[in-house]
């Protein structure tokens, strides 16, 4: 027994840690955190701060995207930038992160289609480029497969990769591309235990100044959270419903769970096993 351990009370329910990544069963010194747990937390916080400031590796992500196709056509993503020129400005000026810069708007207008597209897919670094690097390809692969088998066909605008972007930058992009709906894949703000979590936001009929009540969100897309293929199934379900009802957000209830998520009844919860205790 180390010197530190002599003054500790250990929690006898540490086995429950197998059920969650939450910091349970930490034990205590008096009623306070043990030294080892205090330092583990400090380390995780330091790593999360570093994740916020790590830049998007554009070349690497384009290399990964090269393998992706939609109806046998390569995606050839377009790279654009918000009005926030760097991370420092991005953190202080969310309004700039929501707007596409002028040069990018011009680029996208050139790629727009008179007839319009059904859907624009946007990938934004958000607050974790790490998340985009790790989750966007698996999620997009699954989503493209779902889109290919969805009827009627979806016409897809050129996929767009945006740096220093917030969710609403997708509205500007969809307008520039003339798309009816936008899906934004964005790095969520890093948590202590999850510096790599992707968020997915859907907006029907996007326009600048859309309020958030008009969006639907799927969060925590990462292998330890909502797996990319499950997230893609939820996403196509929302997309199809949004297209059918011509709306998104509060008015489009996420009923995916009503049919599919039937697991997990109370008698399977350890605190509520049928045996009275």
């Amino acid at each position, binding site marked *: 027994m180390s010197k530190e351990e002599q003054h500790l009370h250990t929690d006898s329910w540490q086995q429950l840690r197998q059920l969650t990544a939450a910091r349970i069963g930490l034990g205590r010194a008096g009623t306070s*955190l043990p030294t080892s747990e205090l330092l583990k937390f400090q380390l995780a916080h330091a790593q999360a701060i570093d994740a916020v400031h790590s830049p998007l590796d554009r070349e690497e992500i384009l290399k990964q995207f090269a393998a992706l196709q939609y109806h046998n056509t390569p995606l050839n993503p377009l790279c654009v930038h918000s009005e926030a020129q760097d991370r420092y400005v991005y953190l202080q000026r969310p309004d700039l992160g929501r707007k596409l810069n002028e040069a990018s708007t011009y680029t996208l207008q050139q790629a727009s289609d008179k007839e319009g597209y059904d859907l624009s897919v946007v990938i934004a670094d958000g607050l974790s480029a790490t998340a985009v690097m790790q989750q966007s390809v698996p999620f997009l692969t699954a989503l493209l497969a779902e889109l290919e088998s969805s009827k009627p066909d979806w016409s897809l605008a050129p996929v767009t990769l945006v740096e220093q972007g917030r969710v609403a930058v997708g509205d500007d992009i969809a307008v520039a591309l003339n798309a009816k709906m936008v899906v934004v894949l964005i790095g969520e703000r890093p948590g202590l235990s999850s510096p790599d979590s992707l968020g997915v936001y859907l907006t029907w009929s996007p326009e600048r100044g859309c309020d958030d009540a008009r969006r639907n969100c799927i969060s925590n897309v990462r292998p330890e959270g909502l797996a990319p293929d499950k997230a893609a199934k939820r996403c196509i379900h929302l997309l199809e419903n949004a297209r059918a009802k011509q709306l998104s*957000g509060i008015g489009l*209830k*996420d009923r995916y*769970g009503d049919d599919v998520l039937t697991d997990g009844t*109370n008698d399977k919860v*350890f605190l*509520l096993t049928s045996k009275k205790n």
Partner: protein
Amino acid sequence: MAGYCYTLGQLNYRFKDLAEVMAKASPLRSGDQLAGVAAATAEERVVAQMVLADLPLKTFLNETVIPYEQDEVTRLIIDTHDAEAFAPVAHLTVGELRNWLLLESTDARILQDVCLGLTPEMVAAVSKIMRNQDLILVARKCEVITAFRNTIGVPGHFSTRLQPNHPTDDLNGIAASIFDGLMYGSGDAVIGINPATDDVAQTIKLLNMLDELISRYEIPTQSCVLTHVTNTIEAVERGAPVDLVFQSIGGTEITNKSFGVSLALLQEAREAALSLKRGSVGDNVMYFETGQGSALSANGHHGVDQQTCETRAYGLARALDPLLINTVVGFIGPEYLFDGKQIIRAGLEDHFCGKLLGLPMGCDICYTNHAQADQNDMDTLLTLLASARCQFIMGIPGSDDIMLNYQTTSFHDALYIRQLFGARPAPEFDTWLKQQKIFTESGNQLLADKLPGRFAAALSGAGGKL
């Protein structure tokens, strides 16, 4: 309108309206700078505070910061103002109100009596000319007591919301965090889950689990799934066991529209929850969260500073008689509250303003990983708020919310406050903790050394899940 003028030496300062005086008098914060409403210089800020201090409180009844015709929160504030309650302070200026609040003779009862006579704008105004110690001293005098299955806010008591979030809403994952929290004496304000996805079926599933847990272990507390109010209304319609209705709210009509709510919708939700009659010692059925910066974030601030908008949200909450309301003070990010210093000041202001308006004010003492803040800042705010008799804080395993990706106070943090101030949980919950032998009454020790029998049994029953 002539505006408001002040001459300082050779310089003439002029503020075009009440909103500008309020905004410029606000202690420095990044959100007001982002909105372009902050004072341009340190001197201008203090001049605005001097102008504000000289304004008669009656000004706020004659001049609104957001037009009556345009905003339902303004209409609510003006239409429900109680002139009789206002009478004892009606002759005061904002500066004189500060002095009056600080009088030793101005006690809990007097503050309760005047409460409905004060508008959110009056309260926000006086907070802007109060130092941190003033905010603490006056908030400490305010007594706000609410009840559902236990009683929150009794002096000498300090409550916690057990927040057992899980990234995929896994029932056993959530149950594991609840177990951890209960063993640390947390969960008397509410056991409240933020679901990973806004989904009616999931909400009902979680509500059913919490309901069975609370009744199986006879825990004198209430549950809540923090989903959109329309989901909760639908859950009530489908027969789900809803204790509290949750909603995020803001201080302007546009902000609330961006949240997909209105006063009428909130009233409808409250009626739905009341119809279930699930409270045993009281019928406060609403739970609100707020936070400075939401109005700017929704493009709905009308040039009004974020702290005044926040206080207007309390004006809305007051009409719905909540069990709990808390500001989520550092959640929104550095563009609104840049660092630990700004977060601490905002936390104290929000708590003071809510309490003075008669609300059961708690605080989610928190920060995100992109803000210039750390655990030490949270310790400071926690200690200050506890000394101001904040009603409740969050309790989460090891301060780390693995679903919402931010850091808030932990089960350990609440026990720190219990040691420091001798503050007990809500009386009914405290009794339960002692009956269950989670809390001990031997010597200096708060927590029992041994895991109580029925929880040890539940743990052994967990074998099959692991």
